[in-house]
């Protein structure tokens, strides 16, 4: 019974997320790193830089732009809309009037958001990967993929993108259930995640980005402030966690937050403000 209900929720919500005009910006956002990489493929010359330069460039773009900006805001758009967006559309009652436990509804909507987010953002990672390395000779590329760390790097990036969707998705789903205007908590989380580079070691771990960076195959230290002296003392660069621990922690955190959202959803009221 619950499986059928979750499948029904998936069917409705996936169609909305994938095919709605309102979600077009999420595709554009997800593909935004693809543009420079495809440009690099079309116009780049393999003889003026080494493969390792592109490997490092990909790692930097992925950690500092794709995870922190693209997936972050993409998840805001997908997961906050699951409840709050439908409240604004005055269509959330459609689900609430069915004999579906609120916990099942939250789980179904989270899974649907996750399927959409992972498809879009992990798909984009693969396109970016192709884009940045496509201008190299097939021998060099296949050598890197098969004999080097290519496949494991790609898998790590895909896993990191998926974990970002799980972690940020859970938090923004919760914010959408909990707050009438979830953009404020989203902004607070953005600031917190942005400050991660200058936080003390303990506080660094109270973030999504720290655990995501631990899954990334290449460590890119945060840029120095350039001011030197005392400013650089603010940068506490700590060792990444083992990837298995990072994955486990993120999944547990997401599960905890989704359960919290489900409990909160029991008291969720439809108040479109007509009376």
């Amino acid at each position, binding site marked *: *019974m*619950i499986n*059928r*209900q979750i*499948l*029904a*929720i998936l*069917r*409705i919500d996936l*169609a*909305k997320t994938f*095919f*709605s005009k*309102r979600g077009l910006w999420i595709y554009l956002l997800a593909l935004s790193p693809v543009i420079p990489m495809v440009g690099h493929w079309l116009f780049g010359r393999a003889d003026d830089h080494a493969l390792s330069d592109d490997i490092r460039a990909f790692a930097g773009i992925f950690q500092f732009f794709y995870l922190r900006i693209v997936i972050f805001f993409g998840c805001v758009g997908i997961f906050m809309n699951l409840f709050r967006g*439908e409240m604004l*559309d*005055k*269509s959330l*009652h*459609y*689900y*609430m*009037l*069915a*004999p*579906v*436990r*609120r916990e099942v509804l939250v789980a179904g909507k989270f899974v649907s958001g996750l399927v959409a987010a992972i498809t879009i953002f992990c798909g984009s990672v693969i396109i970016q990967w192709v884009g940045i390395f496509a201008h190299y000779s097939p021998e060099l590329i296949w050598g890197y993929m098969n004999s080097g760390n290519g496949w494991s790097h790609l898998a790590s990036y895909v896993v990191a993108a998926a974990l970002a969707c799980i972690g940020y998705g859970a938090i923004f789903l919760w914010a959408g259930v909990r707050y009438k205007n979830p953009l404020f908590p989203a902004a607070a989380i953005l600031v917190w995640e942005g400050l991660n580079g200058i936080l003390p070691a303990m506080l660094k771990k109270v973030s999504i980005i720290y655990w995501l960076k631990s899954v990334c195959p290449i460590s890119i230290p945060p840029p120095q402030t350039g001011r030197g002296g005392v400013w650089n003392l603010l940068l506490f660069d700590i060792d990444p966690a083992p990837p298995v621990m990072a994955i486990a922690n993120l999944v547990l955190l997401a599960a905890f937050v989704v359960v919290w959202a489900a409990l909160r959803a029991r*008291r969720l*009221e*439809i*108040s*479109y403000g*007509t*009376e």
Partner: protein
Amino acid sequence: MIVLENVSKFYGEILGVNKVNLTIPPGITSLVGPNGSGKTTLMNMVAGLLQPTRGKIEVHGLSPLDPERYFRTVGYATQYDGFPSGLTGWQFVHCYLRLFGYSPADTERLAWEAIERTGLREAAERKIAGYSKGMRQRIKLAQAISHRPKVLILDEPLNGLDPLARAETIALFRQLGSEGSHVVISSHILHEVDLISDHVVMMSQGYVVAEGQIKGVRDEISEQPMQILIRCDRPEHLASRLFDHEQVVEAKVHADRAGLLVRTRHAEGFYKLLNHIALDGVTIESVAPADDDAQSVYEYLIGHEESTK
């Protein structure tokens, strides 16, 4: 039975409804009141979309806090025109039924059954975004009845319907009511309330001011003399005879001089008196209460100003 016990709802410090005690029997019950009187709040609470600040609601012994069983019994068509985007009418009903966990065959059968009952078969494959207001009302009704609920709650279901669709929809309500369902309708079109309802619940400023059968409610408004229209051949003579009796407050000869409008504080006594007078040479064609309809009762209880809002 639908039972509300001491139900109140506050939005912060703003009153939604206050201390509502109601027992709604099977049949068609109309909820009437001006805008802001608390009708939608009350319906949303019965439908489980809002939770009462205080009090308890039960439908056939089930609580809205148990949605798995409750919403198999209750169907609700809201007044909101919000639909999940991109769906056709058929998908709207079909997807809703899938949330019940029915088998694909049952889902399809029930969806078509509801769509046919609301007369939307031909438009079913079109996107709801292209529907007229009346069609949207009907597809919401189809959704609400699709799982054959025993209790149907309909918020302003006749809004936007053309006369034919209105008549068909009222006939559908009657059919559902006669099948033993509870049909609770909110409406501000009072002559339709007379036409549709077995019972009426009148609300004003968050309070239930009257409930029951309209005639019964009217009988309890003792401060307003009952109006009775008498069609007869000698209205002036009848009026002069009636003024001799203290239960008659007022008698006005009708403009066509073929009838008389009488206001009396004691209807039963007046009817006996009228029988007596009729034996005295006045030919009476008909006698009918003139103010035991929803409009009159509404105006007596809630006031003319409110009723015209």
